[in-house]
């Protein structure tokens, strides 16, 4: 089952990257995708039922816009701190508790946190994410958990769980 899904994804990737629909191209792509599936199929471990539910794609689209907006805001924030002559930074490493269960959700959340304002994920141990923060604005775990992870957690819960 998951081998078939990997084969379809790889064939789609091949067609996009070569961008031609001649019959030879499709045959060569199918052979290459078969080879790749035989070699690396056992490393593709995802739950595939979720691929077939259309509302997840809708939330993924919404999440894409929210994430892009946060990302642009993050960059202006960092640019301000870099350009400012006195460099208003107050760095530290804080511990954030996550409410997500699946592995892929935690990974996507950690990658998103790396791209948003002044935070970069250092390590993931069980349910706790260690985050390096460029400006520690509060010492209360509740407040900063909400501030760092709370914005994305609801969307990711709808997409991946």
């Amino acid at each position: 089952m998951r081998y078939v899904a990997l084969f379809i994804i790889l064939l789609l990737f091949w067609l996009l990257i070569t961008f031609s629909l001649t019959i030879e191209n499709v045959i060569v792509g199918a052979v290459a995708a078969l080879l790749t599936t035989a070699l690396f199929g056992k490393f593709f471990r995802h739950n595939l039922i979720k691929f077939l539910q259309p509302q997840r794609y809708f939330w993924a689209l919404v999440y894409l816009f929210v994430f892009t907006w946060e990302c642009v805001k993050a960059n202006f924030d960092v640019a301000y701190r870099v350009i400012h002559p006195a460099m208003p930074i107050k760095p530290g490493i804080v511990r954030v508790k996550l409410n997500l269960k699946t592995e892929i959700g935690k990974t996507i959340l950690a990658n998103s946190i790396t791209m948003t304002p002044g935070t970069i994920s250092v390590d993931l141990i069980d349910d706790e994410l260690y985050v390096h923060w460029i400006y520690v604005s509060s010492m209360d775990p509740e407040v900063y958990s909400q501030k760092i992870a709370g914005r994305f957690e609801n969307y990711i819960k709808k997409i991946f769980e």
Partner: protein
Amino acid sequence: MNLAETISLILIIIGVLFNLFGAIGLVRLPDVYNRLQSATKCVTLGTCSILLSLLIRFGFIDIGVKALIAIPILFFASTVGAHALARGAYKNGIELGGKSVKDDYKEVES
């Protein structure tokens, strides 16, 4: 100079500007983790913006679609590289800079 060319030129200017901020931060900020912060975020978003301008300039032909494919690969590669570098630097025993106020990761290490 039509509309698509103008929009793509503006996107390239924004991208190069973000790259400039990231590079300045790479030189100015005090310790490894802060440098990683500024450099990764600004440079990745700037490069994504330049690649997106290719899609807008040429439309959905092979060159634009290839640039569109490059964006998610760049996103995953750059964020995971930054995460691995930060973790490796901490494991190597590089301390946080002098201005730091809080360190929760220390108790895990010891």
